[in-house]
């Protein structure tokens, strides 16, 4: 029974790892596309103003990274308490 429990925990950590891998991938993809959209818009105005007109919002990007980390931490702490 103890061995079954151990295997179950191992599987849980594997699922947790996959989940967070997907989460980091989504974070990277969203930030990449956000930067790409703003760069595309800026390109038009570079010739007029000499500087990129649209810069990514540092607050929003920072908040996104921070909340993703908090979410991963919350899930991990639940698994740790269950172990």
């Amino acid at each position: 029974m103890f061995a079954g429990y151990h295997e179950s925990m191992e599987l849980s950590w594997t699922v947790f790892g996959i989940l967070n891998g997907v989460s980091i991938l989504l974070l990277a993809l969203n930030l990449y596309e956000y930067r790409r959209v703003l760069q595309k818009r800026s390109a038009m105005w570079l010739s007029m103003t000499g500087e990129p007109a649209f810069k990514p919002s540092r607050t929003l990007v920072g908040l996104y990274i921070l909340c993703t980390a908090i979410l991963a931490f919350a899930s991990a702490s639940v698994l740790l308490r269950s172990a």
Partner: protein
Amino acid sequence: MKNLSDLPWKHDGREAVPQEGERMIEKFGTHWIKYVASTALYLVLMTAGLAALSVLGNASALAIPSSLLLSAALVFVHHWYFHRMLGRNADVVVLTNKRLLVSRASLWIRDDTTEHPLVPMRTVEAQKSGFIQHVLNYGTLSFDVPGNIELVPQPHRKAALISEILQEFGPKGRMDVPAHGVNA
């Protein structure tokens, strides 16, 4: 006759290119009220989800599959919310001496740029309707040509700015200027 794709309002998915003599007057994002509904929903779902996770963490090991499922749902909600926020943050309106460009995006799904040339335009109206729009100072810009711009912060100031540009064109507008707006 000119090809449709050569006309100034047609982008065919390409990014708008500055016209000769064009200069930026002002650029602004749409009002922050656009974030409120999604943020409220996100906060409610995340608070409820994290509270449920906390309860499951104190329960027996049998709750592990449920907590993993709940974690997956929370990850989905979290990325949906920020996908929406980043997309809406990339919404911009650019006013130049020749046109008004409205760009809206939803990351990986939609990236639209709508052009409102100032050439056929004669009048611009700023509308604020309702208590919230008055208090938070945002509204809609509408023109005598099709196409409104919603969620504009300080719409009356923006309308006055556009009106000044339109007045520079004179009573006949710029209909005597070639379609691509080359400076005389």
